[in-house]
Each structure stands twice: as C-alpha cells, then as structure tokens.
C-alpha cells in the first residue's frame, strides 16, 4: 500500500507533519488566505507547546501581516483562551497553532471566526476556496500593521471563569487536586486557575516544553502517572488535559480513571443543578449523560460528531451545557467551545458543593462502559462495510446521521469511517466493560468480512 499522505487540508483546518508535509510555504499561504478572508482585520494567534510552535507562528505572522492584518499574539496558551480572547479584543478571527491530540511531530492551524467559534463548514469552505485560488490581499509597506504581544491573555480567561462561577464554597479542608497537563498549553494557566478557585494543587507534567511525557489523549491507559500521584498525595481527584487544553479527563479519589466520557456528565450535573435547561452532546456520548439530564428533567439532544455540529445544535436549542464524549465540555456562559479549564472548574464546584467523592457521585448513575476501537479499512471499502453492518442490525432502531448508530437492548454502538485516515472507528456502550467489548468485536467481525470480500 502506498504511504498515507500526512497532509490534511479540510474544513477543520490544515494539519501535517513538521519536517515533512507542513512546510512554511503552505503555512504562509494559509495565513494569507485567512487574512484575506477576514478582510485584513485583527487576528488573535496562540499556540500550544509543541517544539515546532515558534516556527509555525513566525510563518503565520508573516502571512497575516502581508494580508494587512493587525496581529494580537497571545503566546503559548490553551485553545479556549484564544477563543475567549477573540471576543475579548473584538477581533475578526483567530488562529490556533495546535494539532491537539496528535503526536509531537504534527502541527496544525485551526481557524476561529469573530464569534470565538471554530469556522463552521460553510465559512471553512470559503477559506479553502481563497487558499486554492491563491490570490491573496497584499498590502504595501505603508499599509502594513503590527504585531502586538498581549501579556496576561490567560488572566482574562481565568477571570472570565471566576466571574461566572465564583470561588469554591468554603470547606473544612481544601479540595486536593492533581493536575496532568501533558506538558501542553494547559501548563501555563491551569494551576493558577485551580488555586484561584481555592483548591490545593499538585502537578505532574506541567513543564510547557512540548515534549510529550505521555500520549496526548487523556485516555485511561495514558494516565498512569496521574493516577499514582492522586494516590500518593491522597488527593480528591486528578485532572488530565490534552496538548491544547480543550479536553479534560477525571481520575477519582482512589486513583482510577473514570473515562473521559464522564467529564461532561460531571460538568452537566453541576450546571443542571443550578440552571436546568437543554443539554446537547454528539451521537457518541455515554447514556450516563442521558441519566444525568433526566434527573433534572432536562432534555438531551444528540448531534452529529464534530465540535461545530455540537455548538450549532447548542445554539439552536439554547443549551445550558454541552460537549463531547472525548472530554470536551462546552459551557456557553463562559466560552462557546470545548474548554478544559471551564470543565475543571465545574467538576471542582460539583465536588465542593455536594461534599461527595467522584466515585460516590458516579455510583448514583446507572453503570455504563464505553469502549472505543479502530480498525484499518481501505477508504474505498468503508461505505461497503457500513452498509453491511447496517443490514446485519436492520432489526434494531438506528440513526444514520453520522455513520451508523444502532441502539441495542442493553447498549448501543456507533460505527463510522474516519475523515482523516483509512480506518473505521467503533464506539460501543454496554452495562459492563465485557459486554461493550463484545459489541465491538461483533461489529468488527462484520467489517472484516466487508474488507476481505
């Protein structure tokens, strides 16, 4: 099989491998295209801690200045901080330099609109058209604007969270929390936020050097160091971020990862207890969230996968909280995007106010286990495989908005082709881990037949 290209230009932005496909020329052109798209307005830029971040930033600055933009550089900071800052400074857009959970050799540009949200499919297509047409706004030296380095960008974000949620209620003993920022962008601000909330903070992997101490996704298997630290410090919980600090996972007081799909559940329990209202998540979300919403008599709507789809649906129904099962919590009162800092503040507030431990809170929900697996599948076979799975499970209710989701009597599964790699992803939920794995295996068996047929 020929090598899979590492460059991916899509409505999610441009992503590639440094030293390979993500060349400075490409980056400059994308920045020029974005500068053209925002009409030479103000653009906020920020980056995660990847080793290539500074190189990428310089090329982006050059492209934006050439297109006549004013550039506000907020330096190393979480993706949600850039989103907050776009609105804070009244910018016409933002660029995040981050490949979120991809390994260290990757980097990417993600584009934010004037509302602080990532560009939706329509605007993103317009940007791609400008990029491909290659005719960018080029201003003369006399019209060229400047780069402003904005100190204290993260303070703006922290203040927004404190203003909205306030400090933790006073307790006999401070909440003890261990933070694992994966040496990513969360390192530069999350400890400060947690302390400002009133927690006692211990840290692992908060050196913002971009050297990955563990795989960036906050999956249970990547959190061994955090779990050990929670036990060692006798902490109430552990919090794990990914590289750009949009996703968050929780470790309970016994040092056990609770699974990243429970982050949104915990956050929703706190929000709905104070301000009941609609909840939105994507198709691949734990049924525990449905139980949490039901407890407060709130409606849960499931959208297609993808942050843009979730936020769009949240706007439509006026959701008070939403997000994704990958640990992405969206709390529109602070930030209309996945925000691990907001997620952390909500989870701490839940613990502080309830006086319960993480495991005690989770025990009030029906047991459910989510398992995620992927299987190699040539791109041209993906559709065939999905159709075969669909036929096999024709007797069960299903949802075909995004891949195939099948509702089983004791669980569900969602099977879909990846947008970025020749693989098929399966997410399954069952009352026990064994049952969830069994469902995955049954689906994979179907896919294998399709691939080899």
């Amino acid at each position, binding site marked *: 099989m020929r090598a899979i290209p590492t460059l991916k230009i899509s409505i999610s932005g441009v992503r590639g491998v*440094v030293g390979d496909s993500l060349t400075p020329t490409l980056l400059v052109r994308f920045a020029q295209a974005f500068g053209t798209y925002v009409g030479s307005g103000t653009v906020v830029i920020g980056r995660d801690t990847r080793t290539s971040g500074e190189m990428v930033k310089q090329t982006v600055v050059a492209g934006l*200045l050439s297109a006549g933009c004013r550039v506000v550089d907020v330096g190393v900071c979480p993706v949600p901080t850039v989103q907050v800052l776009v609105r804070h400074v009244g910018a016409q857009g933002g660029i995040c330099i981050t490949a979120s959970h991809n390994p*260290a050799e990757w*980097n990417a540009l993600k584009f934010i609109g004037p509302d602080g949200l990532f560009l939706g499919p329509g605007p993103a297509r317009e940007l791609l058209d400008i990029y491909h047409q290659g005719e960018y706004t080029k201003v*003369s030296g*006399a019209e060229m604007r400047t780069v402003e380095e904005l100190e204290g960008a993260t303070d703006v974000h922290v203040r927004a969270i404190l203003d909205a949620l306030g400090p933790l209620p006073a307790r006999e003993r401070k909440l003890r929390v261990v933070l694992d920022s994966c040496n990513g962008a969360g390192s530069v601000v999350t400890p400060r936020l947690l302390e400002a909330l009133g927690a006692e903070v211990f840290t692992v992997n908060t050196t913002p050097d971009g050297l990955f101490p563990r795989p960036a996704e906050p999956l249970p298997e990547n959190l061994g160091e955090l779990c050990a630290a929670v036990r060692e410090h006798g902490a109430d919980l552990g919090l794990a971020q990914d590289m750009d600090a949009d996703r968050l996972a929780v470790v309970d007081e016994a040092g056990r990862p609770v699974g990243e799909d429970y982050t949104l559940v915990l956050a929703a329990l706190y929000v709905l207890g104070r301000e009941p209202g609609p909840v939105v998540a994507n198709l691949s979300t734990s049924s525990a969230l449905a139980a949490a919403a039901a407890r407060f008599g709130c409606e849960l709507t499931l959208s297609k996968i993808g942050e843009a789809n979730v936020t769009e649906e949240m706007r439509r129904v006026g959701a008070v909280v939403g997000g994704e099962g990958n640990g992405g919590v969206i709390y529109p009162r602070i930030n209309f995007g996945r925000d691990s800092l907001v997620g952390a503040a909500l989870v701490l507030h839940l613990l502080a106010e309830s006086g319960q431990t993480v495991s005690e809170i989770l025990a009030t929900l029906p047991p459910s286990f989510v398992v995620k697996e992927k299987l190699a599948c040539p791109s041209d076979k993906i559709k065939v495989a999905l159709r075969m799975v669909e036929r096999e499970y024709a007797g069960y209710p299903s949802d075909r908005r995004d891949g195939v989701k099948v509702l089983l009597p004791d669980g569900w599964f969602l099977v879909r082709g990846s947008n970025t790699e020749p693989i098929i992803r399966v997410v399954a939920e069952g009352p026990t881990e064994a049952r969830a794995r069994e469902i995955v295996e049954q689906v994979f068996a179907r896919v294998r037949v399709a691939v080899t047929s």
Partner: protein
Amino acid sequence: MRPLKIGITGVRGVVGETFTPELAVGFAQAFGTYLDGGRILVSRDTRPSGPMARAAVLGGLMAAGCEVVDLGVCPTPSMQLAVVRAGAEGGIAVTAGHNPSQWNALKFVRADGLYLNPAQAEELLDIFHQGEFAKATWDRVARRVEEADAVAGHIETLLKSFDAEAIRARRLKVAVDCCNGACARLIPRWLEQLGCEVLAVNDDPTAPFPHSPEPKPETMAQLRAVVKAGRADVGFAHDADGERLGIVTEEGTPLSEEATLALAAEILLPRRPGTVVTNLSTSGAVDIVAARHNSTVVRTPVGQAYISEAIVETGAVLGGEGSGGVSLPRVHPTHDSAAAVGLILEHLALSGETVSAAAARLPRLSMVKHNVKVEPNQIYSLLQRLRAQAEQEGRVSDLTDGVKFETAGGWLHARASNTESMIRLIAEAPEERSARDLVDWARDRLKR
C-alpha cells in the same frame, strides 16, 4: 515592468507586489539549506514591512533547521560584526538599503561577516530555484527565537579601531541625519562615546523615512540647515541600513556621494598608503588621490561582495563605492558608515583641519549619471549592442561589468543595475560637457 530583482546581491522587490512572504520564506529556507543549519543572525532596517519580512525569514530558517537570533532593528554592518563575534554560520539582513520605503530585500552574509561572493550567491539561487529545502523534524526544529543586541558590540569594535581619546579631546559638534533608519540605534550612541556634541535629526527608528534614504546632496537639505544653524563641525547623512554615508562640510555644503570614498582616501592614504578597491563606476578622483599618495587602485564589478572579496585578496587599506559606501578593513572589509564617521572625525581631531579644507584637495571632475529603463529580457542584448558600437568606433572596452571604455580625460560605464530593471550609464570627465556627451552617445545607441 515587475519590480522584482533576484540576483547575486539577494532578492529585492516592492512589498504588496513582488516581495511576498512566500518569496522571503523560500529564500530563507534556501539559505538555511545552503548553510546546512547552524546559528543565523537576522537584522532589519526600519521600513514598515520589516516585521513581516523578519517573521517570514525566521520561519523559513527555523523550518530548514537553523537556530535563529533576532537582532531587531540595527545596521547591517552591526549584524555582520555580530556574526563573526558569535561564531554564527551566517546572517540575513532584511533591508533594501537606499531604496525607497515601499521596497524590501534580503541580503545574505556568510560566517566571516561578508556577503556571499558571486559563486556562492549563484549556488544559493540554484537551491532556491530547485525548491528542495532541508526540513527540520519536530525534534530538531528550533523551539525559540533568541534575541540579542548587536549595536553595543559594534561600538566596542569601533572604539578599538580609532583614536577615541584624541576625538574626545576636541569636543566636536556633529550633525547627523539617520533618515529614521537603523542608524538611529547606532550613530548617536557612537558619537556620544566619542565625546561629540550631537545634533541629530530623523533619529526615530519608529517613524517613516522623511526623505529618500539615499545620501545624496538633494536629500541633505535638512542636514545642511542643521549644520549651519548649529555651527557643527561636520554633518553626516545615512541610508536606511548603515552602509552609505553622505557628508556636509562645516560651511553647510553637501559633498557629492562620489566624494565620500575620495575624501576617505585623501585622509587615510598619507598615513597608510596601500591598495584602494573600488568598482568600475566610481569616480576617477580616487585614482588621482591614490597616485598622489603612492597608492594603487583595484577596480571590480559593481556590488559590495566584489569589493569585500578584492579587499581581502589584495590586503587593501581601503575600499568603497561611488554610492557613498566606505569599507575600512581595519574595522571590517565591508561598507560601514559608522566606521567612515570614525575615520573622518579622527582626522579632524588629529589634523585640526576642517572638512571643507580636506575636501578642497579633492580633484574636480564632473560625473553624469543616467538610467535607461529597459525590459528585463533586453538588458544584456542592449549592452552587447553598445559594446559592438564602441568597438566599431575604435574604443577599447573593459567588459568586467557591462561595458566600460576610456576616452581622453574621461570614461563611460554602461551596466545592468543589480537592483532594478535598468541600464545605468555613468560618465566622468574634467568638464561636465564632455561627460554629458559620453552619456548622450550611449543613450542614443541604446534607444535606436
């Protein structure tokens, strides 16, 4: 005609038209590839496109695996000295020198602080055109942009090169016009170190160029007024990046840019006879001065790289060009207006004579310059035609750089500009009339 020139002096164009960030990134990648990584120093002048070009250059160098040191706004010769001092692999100056504000350019410096020579520049161009650049992987790419100051080191070197004590003792009053360029960060400080009373105009590096950054008599009106009003001993006019120098005498008279090198020779050679290197287009005044002081002149094609190389080769004591660029090998063999300032002030201090008295000893020759704009693809065929005409009329040509021939008491030089799409005609003779006749002769033949 597209305002872009890619050649042995680097890449130069108009921002917003031809000098794009992609071009700057590509050249920086090519230079990083050419040097095979290592530390590269980056300086820039004050034009408003500087930050854009700087960012493109830093990004391109980092992507090619270089460590980068940003010197910020400083004169190009400050960067050149810093490259040597830091033991760096090379440097890039983001400056279009004497070109107007809307231009920008990249100039490439190697580890010895001198510009790439023509063979090296050709190689860089080949790498650029081939487009296959070194690419640093994530574990190799530089993680930060270092920052450093090159001006303090430059002044330190200058102080060691001149008799600062003697200059301080004279308490000279010096007027200076930095054209709001990079020299604003160097020249006033340098003059204060020499105990001068400084009357500075246009010394704000954040303000736009108040006039063309080419130090010629027609751009020195403001400086002349300052010299007169302040009763200064001398006035100095600088270009945007600290290579060219224009001089105003204590009487407020501006000297031609052609006189800067001749005056430097007239000052230096009596004490230090030797070889003077200049280009084919520079006034013959320097030959007359050199002959007077038992010295010789070596002529090169136009371009600083040729001058520097010939200085090193011949062990020359002085180099320079008719544009006002002076190279003093005792500081470094490359144009440095701060070094030329030091030489002149040292002479005033040691001799006690005035600038106008020294200038009065320079030969009186008339030079006429005329630029003929031509399509880029016709430059060389037109020069060939001129050569054929000259030979037909029995004139013996020097073909080192375009066409040059001598007549009784004068000479004519026709060459392709290194920076713009034009043929430059320069003639010199004792009488202006004869020089004009020579230029007219060439212009008629180019137009035919």
